[in-house]
């Protein structure tokens, strides 16, 4: 069964068409990559999945629901099944690393004790256990990016959307992150990764979609 389906989806911004007639579907438990030049619509595509934007044309299904038919009060519930690595990080400057990650669990109403263990476990996975008390502004670019990754995966989401998750990471660290994603995927999470980094999908055997100026121009196996 397909978890995410795009049917002839189009999306316009004020004076710009960001997506044109995109049809694709991602199966439950699959891991796919989206690539394409700067400004081709990768981020927009992911935003449509977590409902940060609405499509202008076509239909999008996440799970069984058509996102357009969703009532406002149900949007938070849908979003709680999704973990997002935002391209622009969206870290809360006034909270330390621990709190930035914990917030994802607290929003889901998880008990305080569990919060602690989960957050520290995830911090260990991204090698940032020693930065738990640091504030985002005092972190290096790559450290910030790993905090965002930790926040996205800490709540064991059904879907993981990672937007350029290794843009600020050295090849070694990037490899570690990809290993983590694969583990998560192996445990059943559907993973969508938007990236320009060919190393990430080279020899993975996963489907790689290529966007160009908003159109889906190719689907190959990495």
């Amino acid at each position: 069964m397909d978890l995410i389906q795009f049917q002839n989806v189009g999306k316009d911004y004020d004076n710009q068409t960001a997506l044109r007639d995109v049809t694709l579907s991602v199966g439950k438990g699959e891991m796919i990559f989206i690539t394409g030049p700067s400004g081709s619509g990768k981020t927009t595509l992911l935003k449509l999945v977590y409902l940060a934007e609405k499509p202008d044309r076509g239909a999008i299904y996440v799970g069984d629901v058509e996102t357009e038919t969703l009532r406002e009060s149900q949007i938070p519930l849908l979003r709680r099944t999704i973990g997002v690595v935002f391209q622009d990080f969206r870290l809360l400057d006034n909270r330390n690393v621990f709190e930035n990650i914990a917030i994802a669990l607290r929003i889901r109403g998880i008990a305080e004790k569990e919060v602690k263990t989960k957050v520290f476990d995830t911090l260990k996975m991204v090698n940032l256990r020693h930065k738990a008390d640091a504030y985002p502004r005092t972190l290096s670019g790559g450290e910030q990016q790993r905090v965002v990754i930790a926040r996205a995966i800490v709540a064991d989401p059904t879907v993981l959307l990672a937007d350029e998750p290794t843009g600020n990471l050295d090849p070694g660290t990037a490899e570690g992150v990809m290993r983590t994603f694969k583990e998560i995927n192996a445990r059943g999470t559907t993973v969508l990764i938007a990236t320009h980094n060919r190393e990430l999908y080279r020899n993975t055997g996963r489907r790689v979609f290529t966007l160009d100026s908003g159109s889906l121009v190719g689907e190959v196996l990495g």
Partner: protein
Amino acid sequence: MSLPYSVTLALQSLTREKWINLISVLTIASALLIISIAAFVVYNIDAATRSLPERFSMVLYLDDDIQKDRIDGVITALRRNSAVRSLRYIPKEEALRELKSVLKNSTYVFEGLDENPLPDTLELKLRKEAIGPEAVRRLSDEALKIKGVREVDYGEKFLAALHSLRAGTKTVGIALIVILSTGIIFVCYSTVKILFYRRKEEIETFKLLGATRAFIRAPFLIEGGAIGLAGGLISLFGIFAFYYAILLRLSVTMPVFKAVLFPSGPFLLLPGVGIFLGVAGAAIALGRLRY
């Protein structure tokens, strides 16, 4: 949404942004203090002028040759009138004594007199409700119709002036309080608005992470309430300080201030008003959260 956690969030935010929260607290405190003092001043001007008409009295001069039972008749007739609060009969002998004491520096005026030239008089005190230029004139007309009453005397002009002064003070006072309150509520609102404006990003991120409206709102409302409460308490302290440190001290050297009334009851509501302002301000500033 766990309530305890929203309290935690509110507390975190309160302690994290000390400076900006202090500004809000002090803004609300000064706002409430200013309104309180304005209300306090208007209340006192009103109270001070309210007691003036109570001293107002109307004097009825009776016929020269009036009989004892005729006098009783006049008194009974007047007592029946609902506007009359109290009534004093002043025989002409007493009236002369009073006049002499009033003109005490000129008692020689009366040196040549061998007969009392004054008439018997009745002094009426009126009910507060009845003291208006119209009502008083009506009463005067009625009194003149009673047999035995020769003349009625009351300070028409004084009464009219006093009346319009009181009405005017009240109008201007209320206008002032309304202007002050509008200005101040606006300032409160804008402070809170700016406070939340800064957190637009944070709210947006919360939403994208899957937070419900209640989860986002609760800490803000708690925070607003706490800020409002602190502001209210400070203004309460301020108004008491104003009374005890300034007015009471002044009244030692300037006895006029002994007459100042300090209705502490309403002021005790200030913390409550503060909480209301804070919570309402936060709710309005947050606005309708859209997904």
